[in-house]
């Protein structure tokens, strides 16, 4: 068996992941910039009455003829289909060299140049102070997820900080919270102090049940703030959770603590 065949499981995950992304996007509505639907892979329609299976690149796909929706493939059929998909992918990417986890643990194969994607010549400074550059970002196990450059972590941080900042705004705004008596979260919880998100889930004695942080956020919005409770998937709830958790960076998780 060729080494690349070890990656066959990834192919099926593509189709499942696509379905999950569609599901998640359903609960994600609202006016916030953080209410964007999750990205999805578009799987082409079956043309010959079979089922279309897509690789996790979101591009390479094939139709399994004779397979009905909901019907499982035999093990042999799965191996055949995934082999065919990977062959197709490699035909279109002749310059890519896959290295398997097994080969990688040997030590000799870890320095495959194809996986070392660092800053481009002349752009070394873009990663900023503290970034360790190409060496740290080098793939360890040949996984596609590791194929990122020095700029990517900066982008991820900016995106995360923007999400937290959205929560910061809501936390400090009577209007965005929908408060009716002039009370906002920060009036009792400057910098989200005394919200102790690291202690949830815990038995909340006053509620006589186990509560999550979001239950307490909702309780505060309804009672002291005098607003309307938020759906758990409401972008405002998600942003508030993000802000509160971000303020406790470094605190040890200690669920159930009183």
């Amino acid at each position: 068996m060729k080494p690349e065949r070890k990656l066959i499981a990834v192919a099926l995950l593509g189709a499942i992941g696509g379905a999950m992304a569609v599901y998640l996007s359903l609960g994600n509505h609202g006016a916030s910039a953080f209410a964007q639907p999750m990205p999805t892979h578009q799987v082409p329609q079956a043309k010959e009455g079979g089922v279309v299976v897509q690789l996790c690149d979101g591009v390479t796909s094939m139709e399994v003829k004779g397979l009905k929706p909901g019907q499982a493939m035999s093990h042999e059929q799965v191996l055949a289909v995934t082999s065919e998909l990977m062959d197709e992918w490699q035909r279109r990417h002749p310059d890519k060299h896959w290295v398997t986890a097994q080969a990688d643990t040997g030590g000799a194969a870890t320095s495959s140049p194809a996986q070392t994607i660092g800053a481009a010549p002349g752009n070394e400074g873009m990663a900023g102070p503290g970034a360790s550059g190409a060496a740290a970002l080098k793939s360890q196990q040949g996984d596609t997820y590791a194929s990122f450059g020095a700029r990517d972590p900066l982008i991820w941080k900016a995106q995360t900080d923007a999400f937290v900042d959205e929560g910061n705004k809501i936390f400090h705004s009577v209007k965005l919270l929908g408060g009716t008596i002039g009370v906002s979260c920060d009036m009792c919880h400057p910098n989200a102090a005394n919200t102790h998100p690291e202690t949830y889930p815990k038995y909340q004695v006053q509620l006589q049940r186990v509560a999550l942080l979001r239950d307490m956020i909702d309780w505060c919005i309804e009672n002291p703030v005098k607003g309307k409770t938020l759906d758990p998937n409401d972008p405002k709830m998600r942003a508030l959770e993000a802000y509160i958790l971000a303020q406790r960076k470094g605190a040890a998780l200690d669920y159930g603590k009183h």
Partner: protein
Amino acid sequence: MAARHKSIETKFYEDRERVLKALRNCDRRTFLKIAGATMGAVAAKGLMPPHTFQLVTIANAAVDKDFSGQGAQGDRPFTFAYISDAHLYDRTLNQRFVRSIVKAVDDVNALDPQPDFVLYGGDLAQLGTATQLELGRQILSALKAPVKMMVGEHDWFLDLGDKWQELFGHPTYSFNWKGVHVIVLQSVYEKDFWTARRMTPEERMQTVAGLDNGVQSRFEVGDQQRDWLKQDLSKVPTTTPILVFSHSPLYKYYRNWNFWTDDADEVQAILKPYDKVTVVHGHTHQMLQNQIGNISFYGMLSTAWPWPYAPEGLPPLTIQMNRADPFDQFDGCGDGQFTARADGLVDTVYNLWDRNPVTIKAGYLVSQGKTDRPPAPQFASY
């Protein structure tokens, strides 16, 4: 979940809405019937206001603005009470904070014997408007004992003190009371952060009203007022007990939240020659004590809401209050009394609502915690 678990306050709002609805468009006879029924319901539940809604009239007695000094030659010990940090909005917007300060006024009026005076510790208003300050003045006017007013940043930064001074006079003053020299300071001046940012008065006020935004400047007593303080004390012998009221703590606790006075060290230096100095401050909404050299510091409770202890800088001698129960709007809040003893030191009682009162004897701080240590709280902060 929410529908079955309501706070005392949410129930209060529902009761209130029901009564107000019934009162709309009713004739005098019906009105009396409803008022009677409300009172009856309150009595039947065994509740006293302000736990539930009833029609309350607040007397409109004049606030004592210029303490005449009668009795100034009397003897210690004497007591004084405080109410602080009510943060009133207009009463049409927010009943919660109104009920809290009314509760404190009831507490103080129930003291027997009555205190010599009541110190109001600042932040009467939330956003410094005339309506909010006038509402506060009206509520405090129901106090039986004379009221001494101190200003807070929430009273000041809408119009830079115009309305507050129109109602209560100059924010910096001193008087002698039974052998104690009492000084009230305006400790919440800030260097101009608003002009360069082209802020409106409302934006300036809103910025100062936030604790954790980092935009505003730090509080300060300022050169001019420190000169006044030196001048004021130049006539006072160093053996005279000194009692200072400031809104912000006159030491450096936590800069990010302005639990801080920038020129605190300079003010402490002015007070250093005196044998017995007590500083009582508001602003921090928590039980807080500190001892720096000859100076004992006591933080006052708020009527409106408690603040968590800051993540760093807490004075080591502080006896923390129990973690407040968020489901009880009065927990962690309250008022208190002080006793100026014959020896010129000051004992403190924190009258925590819905909890047992906590007494801090002067000896606890003066001895650096070696004597009179009060019990530690059951639930310290996280």
